């Protein structure tokens, strides 16, 4: 049937095989990127020879020299250059220099998770030794044993930690860290781009607390951040740390020539929009690469996909002369020793293909590879490039292939190959001023140091800060006395604050088979995700929810291998609380503000993996929940409603019902478009069709943030609502399906309404005026 690449044919052989007619129809785009020569620069003045020698380098790339110069000048700097461009040196060298200059200087390096940075603990220790600096380097995270913690407090000059440990381990006990904090000269925030959304909003407040405590100890460190290429690294760093940052973003590191293919599986049924399996196509692509002699890394979205791909790729390569064992999986859940073996196998070249989850994306050193396959779009431009960057690190040509799935995000990328190639990567959004989050951290801050009369916290002014302190005094948590608010309660406020959720207490998820807690779901989305009979995805594995205990806030689950996933059926009542902004686009009012959402999960749908076919429904009996969140809502004007009514959409269908169906379809595509534009997970935004008593048409499409108080997504979406609407219209136009499919407006409902046409008609109301 199809032409496969010849064994040992190399990259040229791949280009040849993939331009054969039978395969070329699956290739939506081929993007060639030229290589780049290195750009070196002399070490900045003021940098002693010891630090360079310690780092073990003779010369610096231009971006490294620039970043080091800024840092040693006492200014904050964020380095946002591609994978493997030597970002770590940009903070390692300034730290060595600072610690070498002053024997009391200390530094703290913050990584988003504890696993990251572990390699660096040893590396930086060795660098300090070579530089002749006496500096104890210690890791301080949840896994650090008690004795080692005491030692770290007493002796460490370089501390590797994470936001959770600063929040729970260091700040509430800052007096025990007094000499370390007093000497603090540099704070490193690595993997800056990871701090978007709720986690970043929390971390920003942890940093506010840290800076408050540092003021007490008289330290003013320089802030050094390192980020994947996102659109707004300097903005994001300054929002996170509350400090101005200089940006270094142009890499002086060399890179080889690179070709990126974007592919989609063949369309099986144009009417329903159904396509072949992207996993099969990804396996075909990977086996071609392996057969051509290229060492290949495949990224898949879930553990399950990893296991399936390993099987498929092995089956394919087995047909030739290649041993199936050279193909391996790599994912969370593998034991560390096995992981190390696989990493070594990659470095040594014995392994020819590794299929991995994002577990391999960050900070794991595996050397450079010839080819990368992305089985499914990873959700953001930034992380797509992060993964593609794993291939052809510095020298020689490389190839990458993105195999798109049927999701709207993937289809959008396939339809707009230029999006991936030329769009600046996404913005990292976080909202340090989410008041729900701020309030919790102010309790922690009051525990750490008394609030002085007139003190401000973050962007809260003195009056707002006083309002909160008076509230805490009323609750008996602080006591106002002598012009200060002093913590007096027998309570440890940090214990109630997790850095990864907002609002109501989270639910724990426990595996009933092994009787072990495997995860947590934030209170706001728990009922949607953990109702009985729901398929709950945890670390890429599907679990069936067997029991939900509302009182104990606990769900008991069991691992299953279903053919479907579930989608909750939710009845929501929306009440606008505050309209912050409103613009009229054609005959639609687009508002941004805060809404109260009262929702009740009434049932669920079972949807088949891959094809998104509806396999049936179920009912659940759960209580109503209420929350306030920020939202964008789109409401037709009276005139708009008339236009809809006048178009006589479909015989026998009420204009209002037709509008509602169209809004539902529009919500489906808009949530995905918004996720692309805002660099968030599609689940961070929830589309709901509801009443809007204040609008002329009385009905609106709400797109609200899933988290109470939000992280600023709705705000930013409103800023670009016109462009988002244009994207949505374009996506509907390009989708080959007839009346709605999972890749665009969602599958056609049984009402008989043409969802796609209805959604398009609504969009026309918004965008037609300028075209």
């Amino acid at each position, binding site marked *: 049937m199809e032409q496969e690449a010849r064994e040992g044919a190399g990259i040229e052989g791949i280009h040849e095989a993939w331009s054969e007619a039978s395969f070329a129809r699956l290739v939506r785009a081929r993007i060639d990127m030229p290589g780049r020569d290195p750009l070196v620069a002399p070490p900045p003045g003021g940098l002693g020879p010891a630090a360079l020698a310690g780092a073990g380098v003779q010369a610096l790339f231009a971006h490294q020299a620039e970043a080091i110069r800024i840092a040693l000048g006492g200014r904050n700097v964020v380095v946002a250059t591609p994978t493997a461009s030597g970002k770590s040196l940009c903070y390692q060298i300034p730290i060595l220099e600072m610690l070498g200059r002053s024997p009391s200087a200390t530094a703290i390096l913050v990584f988003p998770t504890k696993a990251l940075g572990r390699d660096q603990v040893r590396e930086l220790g060795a660098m300090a030794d070579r530089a002749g600096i006496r500096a104890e380097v210690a890791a301080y995270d949840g896994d650090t044993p008690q004795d080692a913690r005491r030692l770290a407090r007493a002796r460490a000059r370089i501390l590797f930690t994470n936001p959770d440990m600063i929040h729970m381990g260091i700040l*509430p*006990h*800052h*007096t*025990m860290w*007094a000499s370390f904090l007093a000497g603090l000269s540099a704070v490193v925030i690595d993997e800056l781009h990871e701090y978007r959304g709720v986690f970043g909003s929390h971390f920003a407040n942890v940093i506010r607390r840290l800076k408050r405590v540092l003021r007490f100890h008289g330290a003013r460190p320089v802030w050094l951040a390192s980020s994947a290429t996102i659109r707004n690294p300097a903005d994001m760093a300054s929002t996170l740390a509350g400090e101005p940052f200089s940006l270094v973003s142009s890499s002086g590191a060399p890179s080889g020539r690179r070709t990126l293919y974007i592919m989609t599986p063949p369309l099986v049924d144009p009417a329903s929009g159904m396509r072949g399996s992207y996993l099969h196509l990804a396996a075909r692509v990977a086996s071609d690469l392996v057969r051509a002699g290229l060492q290949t890394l495949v990224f898949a979205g879930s553990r399950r996909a990893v296991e399936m791909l390993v099987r498929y790729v092995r089956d394919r390569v087995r047909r030739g002369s290649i041993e199936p064992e050279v193909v391996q999986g790599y994912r969370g859940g593998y034991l560390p020793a096995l992981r190390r073996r696989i990493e070594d196998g990659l470095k040594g070249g014995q392994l020819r293909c590794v299929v991995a989850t994002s577990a391999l994306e960050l900070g794991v050193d595996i050397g450079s590879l010839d080819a990368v396959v992305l089985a499914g779009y990873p959700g953001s431009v930034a992380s797509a490039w992060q993964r593609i960057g794993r291939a052809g690190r510095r020298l020689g040509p490389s190839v990458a292939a993105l195999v798109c799935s049927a999701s709207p995000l993937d289809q959008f990328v396939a339809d707009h190959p230029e999006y991936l190639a030329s769009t600046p990567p996404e913005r990292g959004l976080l909202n340090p*001023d989410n*008041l*729900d989050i701020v*309030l919790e951290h102010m309790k922690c801050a*009051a*525990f*750490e*140091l008394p609030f002085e009369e007139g003190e401000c916290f973050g962007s809260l002014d003195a009056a*707002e800060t006083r*309002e*909160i302190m008076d*509230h805490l005094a009323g*609750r*008996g*948590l602080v*006591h106002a*006395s*002598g012009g*200060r608010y*002093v*913590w*007096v*309660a*027998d*309570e*440890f*406020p940090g214990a109630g604050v997790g850095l990864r959720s907002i609002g109501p207490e989270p639910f724990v998820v426990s595996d009933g088979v092994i009787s072990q807690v495997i995860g947590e779901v934030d209170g706001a989305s728990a009922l949607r995700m953990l109702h009985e009979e729901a398929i709950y995805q945890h670390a890429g594995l599907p679990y069936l929810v067997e029991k939900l205990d509302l009182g104990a806030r606990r769900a008991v689950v069991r691992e299953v291998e279903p053919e479907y996933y579930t989608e909750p059926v939710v009845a929501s009542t929306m009440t606008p609380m*505050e309209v*912050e902004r409103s613009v009229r686009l054609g005959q639609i009012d687009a508002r941004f503000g*805060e809404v109260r959402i009262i929702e009740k999960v009434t049932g669920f749908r079972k949807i088949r993996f891959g094809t998104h076919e509806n396999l049936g429904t179920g009912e659940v009996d759960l209580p109503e929940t209420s929350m*306030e969140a920020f939202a964008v809502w789109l409401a037709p004007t009276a005139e708009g409603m008339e236009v809809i009514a006048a178009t006589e959409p479909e015989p026998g269908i009420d204009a209002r019902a037709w509008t509602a169906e169209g809004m539902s379809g529009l919500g489906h595509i808009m949530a995905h478009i918004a996720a692309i534009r805002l660099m968030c997970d599609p689940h961070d935004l929830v589309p709901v069709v509801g009443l809007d008593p204040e609008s002329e048409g009385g009905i609106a499409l709400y797109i609200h943030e899933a988290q109470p*108080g939000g992280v600023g997504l709705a705000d930013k979406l409103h800023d670009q609502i016109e462009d988002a609407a244009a994207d949505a219209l374009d996506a509907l136009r390009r989708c080959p399906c007839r009346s709605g499919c999972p890749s665009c407006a969602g599958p056609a409902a049984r009402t008989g309404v043409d969802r796609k046409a209805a959604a398009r008609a609504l969009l026309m109301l918004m965008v037609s005026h300028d075209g």
Partner: protein
Amino acid sequence: MTDESRLRRLRRILERDPEPAAPEPAGRPGDGPDLLHDRIRSLRAEIERVASRTRDRPGRREDALRMLGPGEEAGPAVPIPGEMVRGPLGDLWMRERRYEPGALHGTAEIMAGLGLAGEEAALIALDEGLRSFDMRRSTFLDVETTGLSLGTGTIAFLVGLGWFADGGFCVRQLFVDRIENEPAVLGAMIEALGPRPMLVTFNGKSFDVPVLRSRLTLCRMDADLGGAGHLDLLHASRRLWKRRIGDCSLDSCERAVLGLEREGDVPGELIPEIFLEYLQTGSPGRIPDVFHHNLLDVVSMAALAGRMSELVQSRSCGDMDDVVSLAHVRLRHGEREGAEKDFACAAGSTSSDHRIESNLALAILARRRGEHALAASLLVRVLEDDPDHAAAHLMLAKIHEHNLKDIPRALEHARLAEEAEGVEASTRRIARLNRRLSGP
């Protein structure tokens, strides 16, 4: 977001901010099924019960005690004991008491604590650094706090200090009557401690001292807290009395060692709440009870130190549990001779457990000295009390095989030692002994 809408939003959030889980100032009937509240209520009931027992008893000689049960109206407020005095860093609330020679605490004499010598402190603390420990230069220290967490948000609002002076025992209590007077209290504490103080505490290494260090740092002050020596009686109590009284909380030690039953004492768990109530209402409330509680803590430490000294010094055999414990402490401290004396004393106990443990220990010591025949005879005594004692059989097997060269006896014991050395090793040993028995 506009300023007004943010303020409105802030107020909405504050309205729904959940109440802290901390106990309510008063137990309200009809509270929900809240476990914590239930616990507090039952505690209160317990206090009430104890308090009424106390009130009924005539002629109590302690400070005025005031107990309020649920729903009971506060009578005429009992004033906080003590007075405002001038300290090095400002005015503060202080109360002093002095106990004269002969004063009893439970059945123990308070002044006995003065008898604990440096060597004894080093022994019971297993800390050579305490050899220079001197009770005349030491201060007993105990603090009451706003919570049990060791974080920066925990305030030591009452600092109790005690020392032996002029033939008596003095207790000085320094009280943070207003939060802003905390530096004055810490200043007065530093003054009372003097330079290079030695400290005696009960669990102070893990709690009182770290809390005070944190408070000093926060008030930008510094002090030497036990750098010259710190005897933590909790650890010593566990070493000496765990065998006899199990959990060595101050409470249990008082009951078992001092014969002291606290009457109408305020439970430690309620202390943070009492102080918070005092801050909020400005009226003394049950603060006088907290003073009393703290006073008893300090005095108990002095009396416990006395009991420890008596135990260590005693020439005659006291409680056999304690003698065995002390012997083990002596061994760990390297006092072999003393340990042997104590074990020998306990070997004459009426309890076979004591006899077995002591004879076994003595046998090990004898064997280490090379007195194998003596060791064997001691082990035989162990077997008299417990014929199946596998470890004793094992040692006898070894002694008879290697030292006394009595292979048949060795084999006899080896056959009964399996439990102590495991099947494999035991089988090997028996096989070897059999070979030696039948060999040349």
